[in-house]
C-alpha cells in the first residue's frame, strides 16, 4: 500500500517534471471548469482556440527564431503593415472609405498572397541584416518594428481600412461549426512541425542556435539559413495578418501592438530557450494556450482588470518555474 502510494507520487512527480507546462495547462482547465462550468462549453473552447490563433501563429515563427538564438520584435508591426496593404486590396466595392476607389472586387487569394509576401519580405530583410552585418537580432528587428509600423501609418494615413467582406470568410466557420482561424492555426502548426523536425532547414535551425561556429564548419550555410528563419517568422506574421483581417473585418495601422511580447512569452512558456538550440512547436502551442486560457479565465471569473495584470505576471512566472523543474538537476 505504502509503496504503491510512493510509486504513484514518484510517477506524478516524474510526469510533472517532464510535461511541466502541460500539467499547468491541465490544472488551469480543471480549476476553471470547477469555478465556472461555462468554461468547458464547446463555444468557449472554440473561443479560446480562436483567441490563441493570432499570437499563436506568430509564436510558431518565433520558435524558429528563438531556437536559432535570435529574437524578433517586429512581428506585431509586420502584421499591421501586411494587414493594411492586404485590406486595401480586399475592400468590398461598396466600402465607405475605399482605399483604391476604382478597384473592383479581387479574388480573395490576392490579398492573402500579398499579406504573406509582405510578411516574408520584411522578415527576409531583417534576416539579411542579421546575417550579413552581424548586428544583433534585437536591433535589426527593433528597427524593423519601427519601420513596418511607420509604413503601416504612412500607407493608411493613420486610419483603419475596413469593410473587408470578402476576407471575413476567414473569420467564419466551416459547416457553421469550426472557426476557420482554428483550422488555419492547425495548418500552420503542422507545417511548422514538419519544417522543424523533418527537414534539413529545421536541423540547421537547431544547429545554428546550438553552436553557430560548429554549424558553419559542419557545412551549414548559416547566413542563408538565418535569412530563411526570419523570413519564416515574417511569413507567419503575414499569415496572422490574414487571420486578423478575417476576424476583425478591418485592419488598423496600430493593430497588434505588443503582440510580439505575447508571442515571445508563449514560445518561452512552452520551453523554448533563449540560449538557443532548444525548443519545440508543441511547446509554442501549449504556451499560447496557457496564455489564452488564462485571459479567458480572468474574464469568466470577473477578476478586476487591474488585478488581472498583476495575476497575469505572476501566473506566467509560476508556470515557467514549474516547467523549469523538468530541467532541474537531480542531485
Amino acid at each position: 500500500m505504502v509503496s504503491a502510494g510512493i510509486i504513484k507520487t514518484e510517477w506524478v512527480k516524474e510526469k510533472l517534471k517532464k510535461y511541466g507546462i502541460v500539467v499547468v495547462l491541465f490544472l488551469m482547465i480543471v480549476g476553471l471548469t470547477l469555478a465556472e462550468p461555462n468554461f468547458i462549453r464547446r463555444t468557449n473552447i472554440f473561443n479560446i482556440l480562436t483567441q490563441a490563433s493570432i499570437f499563436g501563429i506568430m509564436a510558431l515563427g518565433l520558435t524558429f527564431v528563438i531556437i536559432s538564438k535570435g529574437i524578433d520584435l517586429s512581428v506585431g508591426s509586420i502584421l499591421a503593415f501586411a494587414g493594411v496593404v492586404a485590406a486595401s486590396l480586399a475592400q468590398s466595392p461598396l466600402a465607405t472609405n475605399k482605399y483604391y476607389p476604382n478597384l473592383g472586387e479581387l479574388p480573395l487569394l490576392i490579398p492573402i498572397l500579398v499579406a504573406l509576401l509582405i510578411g516574408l519580405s520584411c522578415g527576409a530583410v531583417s534576416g539579411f541584416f542579421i546575417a550579413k552585418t552581424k548586428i544583433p537580432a534585437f536591433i535589426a528587428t527593433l528597427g524593423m518594428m519601427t519601420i513596418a509600423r511607420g509604413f503601416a501609418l504612412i500607407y493608411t494615413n493613420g486610419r483603419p481600412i475596413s469593410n473587408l467582406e470578402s476576407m471575413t470568410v476567414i473569420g467564419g466557420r466551416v459547416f457553421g461549426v469550426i472557426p476557420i482561424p482554428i483550422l488555419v492555426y492547425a495548418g500552420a502548426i503542422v507545417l511548422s512541425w514538419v519544417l522543424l523536425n523533418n527537414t534539413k532547414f529545421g536541423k540547421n535551425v537547431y544547429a545554428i542556435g546550438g553552436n553557430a561556429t560548429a554549424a558553419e564548419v559542419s557545412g551549414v550555410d548559416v547566413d542563408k539559413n538565418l535569412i530563411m528563419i526570419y523570413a519564416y517568422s515574417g511569413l507567419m506574421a503575414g499569415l496572422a495578418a490574414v487571420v486578423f483581417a478575417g476576424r476583425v473585418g478591418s485592419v488598423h495601422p496600430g493593430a497588434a501592438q505588443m503582440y510580439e511580447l505575447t508571442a515571445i512569452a508563449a514560445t518561452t512558456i512552452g520551453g523554448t530557450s533563449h540560449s538557443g538550440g532548444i525548443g519545440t512547436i508543441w511547446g509554442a502551442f501549449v504556451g499560447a494556450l496557457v496564455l489564452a486560457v488564462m485571459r479567458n479565465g480572468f474574464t469568466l471569473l470577473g477578476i478586476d482588470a487591474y488585478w488581472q495584470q498583476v495575476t497575469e505576471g505572476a501566473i506566467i512566472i509560476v508556470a515557467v518555474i514549474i516547467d523549469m523543474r523538468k530541467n532541474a538537476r537531480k542531485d
Partner: protein
Amino acid sequence: MSAESNLLEVIGVVKKFPGVLALNNVSLEVAPGEIHALMGENGAGKSTLVKCIAGIQAPTSGRIVFKGEDITEFTPKKALDRGISMIHQELSPVVHRSIMENIWLGREPLNRFGLVDHKAMYRKTQEVLAEIDLQEDPRTLMENLSVAKMQMIEIAKAVSYDAKLIIMDEPTSALTDKEIQQLFRIVRALRDKGKSIIYISHKLEEIYEITDRVTVYRDGTYIGTERTLDLPVQKMINMMVGRDVDELFPKTPCPIGEVKLEVRNLSHARFFRDVSFTARRGEILGIAGLVGAGRTELIQTIFGIYKKASGTILIDGKEVEISSPKDAIKANMALLTEDRRTSGIFPMLSVGFNMTIASMGQFMNRVKLLSGRKISRKSEEYRKSIHVKTPNLEQKIMFLSGGNQQKVLVARWLMTQPDILFLDEPTRGIDVGTKAEIHRLISELAGQGKTIIMVSSELPEVMGMSDRILVMCKGVATGIVENTPDLTQDTLMAYATNTMNQETA
C-alpha cells in the same frame, strides 16, 4: 597509510546522474607532497570525482575527508577557501576579459576604499606570469591568446591560489612539449613545497614521468592504487580497459593510389606561406610541428574557414575554388576541428544530433523529408562501433565525458564518408583503448581509398599512423618525409624547429 597522514581521503563516494551511475562507491587517498595520477577510460568518472572534491558537484553519498575534516558543503568557494584549487578539463576562461581579471576573478585585490586595486592586480599578475615564463601583458584579452597560452594561464591561476591540493584534469591536452616541460617543472616545485597534486591524463608517458602513485577507475568503480614505478604499462592498460590492448597504432598497409588532393603555393596573410604538398588516395598524410606552426590554419584554409591569400587547390587534378566549409563539404571533404568546445559540439543538443548533423542528406525519404528512423539507426550503429559511453542517444552531449564527446565528433565526420578527411588532433583526450579503435577506423578508411590528412602533436601517433609526414615550422613547410622505419623523433623535431641543416651538417 593512516587517515591522519593523508591530506585527502575519499571513502565510498557515489554519484548518480539521471540514467548514469558515474561513481559507484569509489575511494582515493592522497598523501601530502604526492603527485597522484587518476587513470581510467573515457567516462570512467575521473572528472566527476575531482569535481566533487573541488565542490563543483556534490556526491550523492559517501565521504570526502580533507585535512582530517569531513567536507559537508560543496561549493567551489568553500573548496578554494579550504585550499583546493583545480585546472578544469572543459572550462574556457572569460574570453572577453583580460588575463589579470581572469586570474584574480573572485579574489580581486582591493585598495583601502574597497575598490579594485588594478595596479596591485597588474603587479601580482606579472609575478604569476613570470613563474610560468609567459611574456604577455596582463591586460591582454584572453580571446587574443592561443589555446595553449590560455591553458598555461589556467595553470598559473590554479597555482596562484597557494592551495594545499591542486587538481589538474588533463592539463596538457592543449599543450605541446615545450609547455608540458614547463608544467612539469612547476608541478615538481610544488611537490617540493609539500603540496599535493591530483593529475589526470591519458598520456601514459606523462604519468610515468611525474606521478608517484596511480589510482585506476573503470566504469565508475575503483580498481586499484599502485606506485607508478611498480606498474608496468600493459598492466596499467589492463586495469583501465579490462583487457589487453594489442596494438596502439594498428596501421594496416594498403595500396596507395593516384594524387587526390594537391595544394600549390598556398599562403595566408598571417599564418603560413607558400605551402605545397600532395595527398593520394589511400594515403595518410601526417602533419607535425610545434604549437603555433600554423598547421591548424593550413587545413582550415584549405577547408574554406580562413581566406587564402594566394595559391591553388586541386582535387583529382582539377582546380577547385573553396571559399566556405560548405564548398569544401560539397567537394567531399570533411574536417574534424581542433577545438571541440568552440567549433565542435552542439552542447545543448543530443548525442544523436551531434553525430548526424553533417550527414543529413543521407537520411531523406522519398518526399525529401528526413526520416527519424534512418537517423537513429545510423547513429546507433556508430555509437556501438566506437563505444560512445552514453545512457542513450537522446542525452545532451554536454553531459558526456570529454573523451566521449570527442568520439561523437569523430563519428560525425566518419559518417559523412568523405573522400578527403582532415583530422586535427583526432585523439585528444581519448583513452588508450579507444584510441586504438579510432586508429583502426582511420586505417580502414584509408584502406577504402580515402585520403586522410592528420594533424597531431603526439609524435608517436603521427609516426605510428602516417605514410608520409609534412613538418611545419613557423608557417613554413620545412619538409615532407617518408615514414620509413628508420625515421626518428629527433629528425622530425629538427624539421619542426627548422634546424635540419645544422643537424645533418
